[in-house]
Structures are given as structure tokens and as C-alpha cells.
């Protein structure tokens, strides 16, 4: 056990935790004023629900010894049985097993919270509660096991995902897109103005995300050492490149750079560097970030309007597209000189890694879409996913939570 490593992982747990309230602010400011509280409530409810799911059985499904075939963990660690103050034999040998467990728990929490933006302003709260528990159990937990669990089949074939490009961002991004399509467009979408109601709050959320991401990525080294430093610096560098790339795209295409644009670009860059941060050099982080900013801009500003779906706050355009690019970029830019536990990528003459990354993407996207579709149909049949028309027009704050964020009168 190493106290330096343990201290850094605890700091990282807190940093990753703050990302979920950060997501809530990021999305909340973009919603209309009648719906901000529904987004804040959903994000805190997800923190509470997944925290419980994780210690009761989620962690065991993802990380306990494989049940064979690399598909799912067993029930050996259910209720944190055998997960104690000593290091685990399988993971992070220098920190308490409990510290590793809660670090991973924060990733399980933020993943469904990212999806909130896609079906914002029209989902029924009861449906969100049930769907979150089912999705975390049947989509997140297995995918996390495939990639990060000892014996997981994708980890075994050599797929690289340092901090969750696919496990967190692609899985939530594609699932969110499917839910947005199934639940349908908001009433009035593209017919009346849907301007963000409070961009300073969105900015605050973006800032919290950027800070928290240092724990997300550099914490994923699970030690206070050189690899954490590499992940820290690549993370900041890619975010910076993507923020400016998005702003310049807007400047060129729409006439002016915007705060929403630069914040969104930064998040796109953070997403893209997530799978790569511990495998690539700082100079490789610059093209990874630049391409993320440009690609995600096109996905959000051009492709979404052309296809006409209402992924309200662009979960797919930022997390889905950014995560897919980052996963491919890992196959292109990875270098064993940075991380001997990784592999060389395409630029170092190893095309096989890129092929593995593509298999990784295709399998996880197909799995996430199929299971999300089934879970959506189940929850829709049980309680109905969408609020009625009148509730949607009045707003979810009042109709789902009996509250208003902004009073008109004192």
C-alpha cells in the first residue's frame, strides 16, 4: 500500500464526483427556465441511485472475478463482500480496494447523468429513476467489465480505453441518441425559439467538468506518478485545442465565437482525450483535440439539423462523436514509449491496434443500442417515458417537482 497513491486516488474520487453536478449545471443552463430544476434533480437522483446500486451489486457485476467467457463479473463482491481496506489482488495494488471501488463508482454515476441532456425537458421523473437503474445494471456494468474487469473479453483482445472513452462516453452518447429518437421531439422544436436560459450557469458547469476531468483521466492511472502526469497534461492540452477549434469553426461559419461554443468545444476535447490520455504524448493531444472540436461542431451544428432528431443538449454530438473519435485516435496515436502497458498505434506502424479499437466500438455501440431499445420499451410500458402534453408545456419543474427555479414575485 502506498499513501501517496491512495491520497491521489481519493482526490480524484472527489474530482470525478464534482463532474456530475457539473453536468447538471452545464445542461441546466441550456434548458429553458421552466426546466432547469428537473435537470438538477435528475442528476442528483442519479448520484444517489447509482451510489446505492454500485455498492449493493453494480461493482460486483463489473469488477468481481469473471464468471467465464469474459462477459460479466460474478456475485462474489455483492454488498462489497471481500472488498475491504487492503488492496485487491486484481486491481490497483497500492491502494485500498475500497478506494478503487468508490473511484470506479463515480464513473458509473456520471455515465447515465450524461444522457440527461438528450431527453431533457420531456422525460417523466419516475421513468428516469427506473431507466437509470436498469441501464446502469444492463448496459454500463457489463461494458465496464468487458474493458476493465479482470478477464473481460475486450481487455483480453487488447482494446485500449484509459479512462472510459467508450465505457462512459460512447455508451452514453449512442444510448442517449436512441432515447431522443424514441421519445420524440419537444413540442415546438424548430418552430419556436429554444434559446439557452442561463449561459453563465452552463459556463460554471463546463468549468467544473474541466476541473473534474483531471481526476477522471489522471486519476485513472491509479497511482501518483509519471503516468498520471502524462494523462493530466494530455487532458488539458486536448481540451484547449478543442475549445479554440470549436470557437474558430463558429467564427468562420456563423460569424462570431460564442461562450456556449467554446465551453462545448472544451468538453468535446475532454471526451476525445479520455480513452487516449494515458497512451499518447502531449503533442498527439493537440490534433486529437483539434479534430474533436471540428468534428463535434459539424455533428451538432450541421448533421443534427439535417437529420432532424431532437438530441436536445447534444449528448450524442459531443459525447458520442467525441468518444468515437477518441477511441479511433487512441488506435492512431498510442505509443508504448508513453505507456509500456499499452500498444503502438497506426503512426508507429501498428495497424492492428486501430482494427481492435474499431471492433471495440462496433461491439459496444451495437450492444448499448440493442439493450437501451429493450429497456426503453419496458419502462415505457411500465410507467410511460414521456410526460403529457400539458405538463411539458407548463415545464417539468412545476409538474414533476412542484418547484420553480426563479420566482416572478418576491
Amino acid at each position: 500500500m502506498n499513501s501517496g497513491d491512495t491520497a491521489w486516488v481519493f482526490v480524484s474520487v472527489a474530482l470525478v464526483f464534482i463532474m456530475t453536478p457539473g453536468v447538471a449545471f452545464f445542461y441546466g443552463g441550456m434548458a429553458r427556465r421552466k426546466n432547469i430544476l428537473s435537470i438538477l434533480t435528475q442528476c442528483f437522483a442519479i448520484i444517489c441511485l447509482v451510489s446505492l446500486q454500485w455498492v449493493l451489486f453494480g461493482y460486483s457485476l463489473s469488477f468481481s472475478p469473471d464468471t467465464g467467457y469474459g462477459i460479466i463479473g460474478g456475485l462474489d463482491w455483492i454488498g462489497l463482500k471481500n472488498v475491504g481496506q487492503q488492496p485487491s489482488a486484481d486491481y490497483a495494488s497500492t491502494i485500498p480496494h475500497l478506494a478503487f471501488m468508490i473511484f470506479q463508482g463515480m464513473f458509473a454515476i456520471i455515465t447515465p447523468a450524461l444522457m440527461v441532456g438528450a431527453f431533457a425537458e420531456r422525460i417523466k421523473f419516475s421513468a428516469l429513476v427506473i431507466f437509470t437503474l436498469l441501464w446502469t445494471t444492463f448496459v454500463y456494468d457489463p461494458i465496464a467489465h468487458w474493458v476493465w474487469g479482470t478477464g473481460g473479453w475486450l481487455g483480453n483482445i487488447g482494446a485500449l480505453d484509459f479512462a472510459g472513452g467508450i465505457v462512459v462516453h460512447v455508451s452514453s452518447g449512442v444510448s442517449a441518441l436512441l432515447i431522443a429518437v424514441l421519445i420524440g421531439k419537444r413540442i415546438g422544436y424548430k418552430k419556436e425559439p429554444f434559446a439557452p436560459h442561463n449561459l453563465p450557469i452552463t459556463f460554471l458547469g463546463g468549468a467544473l467538468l474541466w476541473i473534474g476531468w483531471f481526476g477522471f483521466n489522471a486519476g485513472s492511472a491509479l497511482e501518483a506518478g509519471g503516468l498520471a502526469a502524462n494523462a493530466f497534461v494530455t487532458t488539458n492540452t486536448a481540451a484547449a485545442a478543442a475549445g479554440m477549434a470549436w470557437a474558430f469553426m463558429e467564427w468562420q461559419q456563423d460569424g462570431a465565437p460564442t461562450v456556449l461554443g467554446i465551453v462545448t468545444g472544451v468538453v468535446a476535447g475532454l471526451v476525445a482525450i479520455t480513452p487516449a490520455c494515458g497512451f499518447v504524448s502531449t503533442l498527439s493531444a493537440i490534433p486529437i483535440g483539434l479534430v474533436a472540436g471540428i468534428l463535434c461542431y459539424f455533428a451538432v451544428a450541421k448533421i443534427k439539423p439535417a437529420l432532424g432528431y431532437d438530441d436536445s443538449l447534444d449528448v450524442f454530438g459531443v459525447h458520442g462523436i467525441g468518444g468515437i473519435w477518441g477511441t479511433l485516435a487512441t488506435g492512431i496515436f498510442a505509443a508504448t514509449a508513453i505507456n509500456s502497458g499499452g500498444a503502438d498505434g497506426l503512426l508507429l506502424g501498428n495497424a492492428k491496434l486501430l482494427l481492435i479499437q474499431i471492433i471495440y466500438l462496433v461491439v459496444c455501440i451495437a450492444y448499448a443500442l440493442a439493450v437501451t431499445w429493450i429497456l426503453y420499451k419496458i419502462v415505457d410500458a411500465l410507467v410511460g417515458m414521456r410526460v403529457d402534453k400539458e405538463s411539458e408545456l407548463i415545464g417539468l419543474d412545476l409538474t414533476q417537482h412542484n418547484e420553480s427555479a426563479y420566482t416572478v414575485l418576491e
Partner: protein
Amino acid sequence: MKYIIAIIKPHKLEEVKKTLEGADVNLMTVSNVVGQGRQKGRTEIYRGAKESSGLLKKVKLEIGVNEEFVERTIEAITKAAYTGEIGDGKIFVLDLQDVVRIGTGERGGEAIN
């Protein structure tokens, strides 16, 4: 008695208020409003999507005055709110039936003296 409603550019409020006070017109109600006239609103763009209601921010003043104050009130607002550019605003003058000063119970012209 007249009820005068003036819609002016927000940055002109302080000047209009000072000019009205100079003309001894001291009672007024001020609110933020949005509206449209011949002047068109600016387009807002969020993540590439144009979201424009075309409505501009203006300030509305409401002033109840006795007959002898009507012209100087209109004059003060016109003078102070004028820029010569499109979008300077409007003044509406309505007949005012009655006024009650809640604190004293005074009615009519007395209540706004």
C-alpha cells in the same frame, strides 16, 4: 388627466428620468419589456442554430399626469430619448378616468399632484 406610456431604448432611461424630474414630473413606474417595431432584432445563434424571436429589449415608463403637465412630459421624454436612429420608441397618451392615492385616499388630480 392623461396616462402616458413611453417605450424607450434602455440606455436612455437615466437621461429621460433626469429630464422628467427637471420638468417637475416625479411620479413614474418603470418596467423592462420586449417588443418590435420597424427596428429588427439581432439573430442569436446557439451551437449553429439560429434562435431569434426578433424582439428587442426596451424600457416602459408609465406616468399619470394632470392636463397642464401633459405637453411638458411628452416634450421631456421626446427630447431625452431621441437619438434620430430607428428604434427610438413610442409615446402613447390615454385619457385617465380616475386616480386614488392609497395612503391618503385622495382622488383624481389631487392624487398625482
